[in-house]
């Protein structure tokens, strides 16, 4: 960080400091690695999709209604997250905090339903050990769910910092990066929704 003096006052707040710019580039790079990570999980899931052993297949277990609610919650949260960044560009701290809190509530709702789904499956006797298919199902969705949960915890920390310190180049770049993360998880969910749930229910 031998570069903090290099400030560009005309850019959006999160891009003004050199550190902010580097952190944003670094995070985009990290998202590249995350794409590789989720691609590997998806590839493994596809490789094992037909391997259900003595256990049930996915269309015996999946419920379209529940998944639709989860999808709506997460997609809406991505939208509200976008509004929060819009408010940040308008330099409205309260707006950022309010819209981020709405985002987090929607995210928490998503996680709640996902936990309900997992618990429900376990009650039906479908667990991590049922078959290779279900092992990968739980690990793929669990990885996504863990990401969302960590995102919720992370953004809460950032909101505390935002409330204390106000919108500065540093807090702004942090909030902006967390929003990139949030949108990314939304994109991953779209693939899970399509490739795991829809394709699983068609077969």
């Amino acid at each position, binding site marked *: 960080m031998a570069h903090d003096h290099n400030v560009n006052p005309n850019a959006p707040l999160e891009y003004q400091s050199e550190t902010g710019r580097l952190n944003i580039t670094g995070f985009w790079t990290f998202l590249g690695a995350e794409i*590789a990570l989720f691609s590997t999980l998806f590839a493994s899931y596809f490789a094992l999709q037909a391997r259900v052993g003595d256990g049930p297949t996915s269309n015996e277990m999946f419920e379209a209604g529940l998944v639709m609610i989860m999808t709506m919650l997460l997609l809406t949260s991505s939208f509200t997250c976008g509004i929060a960044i819009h408010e940040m560009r308008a330099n409205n701290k309260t707006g950022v905090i309010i819209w981020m809190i709405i985002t987090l509530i929607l995210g928490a709702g998503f996680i709640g339903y996902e936990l309900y789904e997992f618990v429900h499956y376990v009650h039906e006797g479908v667990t991590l050990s049922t078959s290779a298919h279900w092992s990968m199902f739980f690990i793929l969705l669990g990885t996504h769910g863990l990401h969302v949960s960590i995102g919720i915890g992370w953004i809460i920390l950032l909101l505390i910092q935002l409330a204390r310190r106000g919108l500065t180049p540093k807090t702004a770049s942090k909030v902006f990066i967390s929003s990139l993360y949030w949108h990314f998880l939304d994109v991953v969910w779209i693939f899970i929704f399509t490739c795991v749930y829809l394709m699983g229910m068609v077969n």
Partner: protein
Amino acid sequence: MDLKWNEFIITGDPLILGAQISILLGSIAVVAALTYFKKWTWLWKEWLTSVDHKKLGIMYILSALLMLFRGGIDGLMIRTQLAKPGMEFLDPQHYNEVFSTHGVIMILFMAMPFLIGLINYVVPLQIGARDVAFPYLNNLSFWTFFVGMALFNISFIIGGSPDAGWTAYTPLATNEFSPGPGQNYYLLAIQIAGIGTLMTGINFFVTILKMRTKGMTLMKMSMFTWTTLITMLIIIFAFPVLTVALALQTFDRLFGSVIFTLQGDGNPMLWVNLFWVWGHPEVYIVILPAFGIFSEIISTFARKQLFAYKAMVVSIVTISVLSFLVWVHHFFTMGNSAEANSFFSITTMAISIPTGVKIFNWLFTMYRGRITFTTPMLWALAFIPNFVIGGVTGVMLAMAAADYQYHNTYFLVSHFHYVLISGTVFACFAGLIYWYPKMFGHKLNEKIGKWAFWIFIIGFNVCFFPQYFLGLDGMPRRISTYTEADGWTGLNFISTIGAFMMGLAFLIFVVNIVYSWRFSPREKTGDAWGLGRNLEWATSSSIPPHYNFAVLPEVTGLDPYWDMKEKGLDQQKNVDYKPIHMPNNAATPIIMSVIMGAAAFGLVFHWYWIGIIGGIGIFITMIARSFDYNDGYYVSVEEIKETEAKANK
């Protein structure tokens, strides 16, 4: 997991007992020395919590040398056991453990940190930067690597080493066939170190893209910087695959999933595929920086600009793409269709084209150059023919039909030792010797260095060349012994002699470090060899000040420092200094990494409560980091003036 104490601490083997006693005595000696000389604060402030890329680089290299010793001892034990038929030096179980740890340590805890150490030290200097993009992350990368390494290394004294090979193929590596903690060590230690490598990848990728000094466009970067950039890109896309593969096997072993198992309709071959989707790019992760190092050294000591720079860049980029398209050649015998094998056979052979381009570039760089035969240059020269032997046998292995003959024989063992030792290990030695004056302010003794070089080169060929013939004679890899009737006795014995010659050369290398520290003349300028071409030699003093450059250099073309010397410019002299912003030390990375190691240690033995407490601890340190708004400090103009005045004397 219920363990008796004598299953927890490994007992009953005289070799391991000896190691336990020497580790204990060594640790006591280090602690005693640090206390006696009152060096604890110095160690903590100057090294362990430092975010200076140069110090982190040196710590990486020291760890790598330590691991070269450990992995080398493993190698010597393998060769001793195989020296004659029916040897009883190691029992089969112990032999399995030794070749597994030899592979893991040499690739992940020796080659990787050695190169990352050199990259850490040199690349920020070569791009004319004062530090990396994320200095805090750099320290965290080092500590996660170090803790992963430590965790892996204690396995042989506590609980038992992994014994399923460095590739840990399932179903062999599942609970059914590899019970006990050994394989858990493998999974968790590599996982922790792998996260560190991924962070290094992101860090240096952004550093090179965003922090180059004024005038240095991409096509004006040094070749080592180019290879680093591409290596980091490969890391970013390959290491997450390893993360997932390790996590899946960890779930199988610890939490009862059935992904790679024979029960529950699992598919063991999925592991093999995932492992090599990471594993083959990994080969290029350890060879591309080596190519970069050789390019620097050859062009320096031939006093010529690198021949066909653009072709070199194109071939590196081509290799990085192809590296992701060849993984199936590691298991042609798995039973793929002929079409699949043919595809991967062709992509594999295609890699030899850009690699061949590089070989010619190096040869033409030397053509009509005025070559100085320094030790680093000797290593670079030896690399070319030896690497070609490794590469040509690689093309032989790439032919899928023929591979049915060579697969899992000593032919393969010899092939990858030829490419990895003459590529990566020679480059590590060459690079260390070449940049040694930059790191420590004095050169390594050339005479002793040449002794080490010749003994190593001869020993290397004596050790591995016969193994090609052993392989063609049908000797499979990973067997712990053989009989007289197999007819492999003579070549195996010769091979063992070569291995001990390499061991001797390593000892001479270490002696050289100590000897040169005492007796080598101290360097007076930043350009120790007098032939430096890139910006790492443009610093005002032999060891760069902690801020690297008092004034950031400006660049107009390739080989910028050579250019400055020709024009008689010294950009560091007689200028107006401005205060320099630098990052502060960080204590959280080491704390976080140690907690990570403790949590993983608990999981190795299925002590889940330790894992949970550790997980909470990791989150607490992350929260502490999030609330840390420390922005670093400014180096005052007075301090810069004082430092530079001392340097210019």
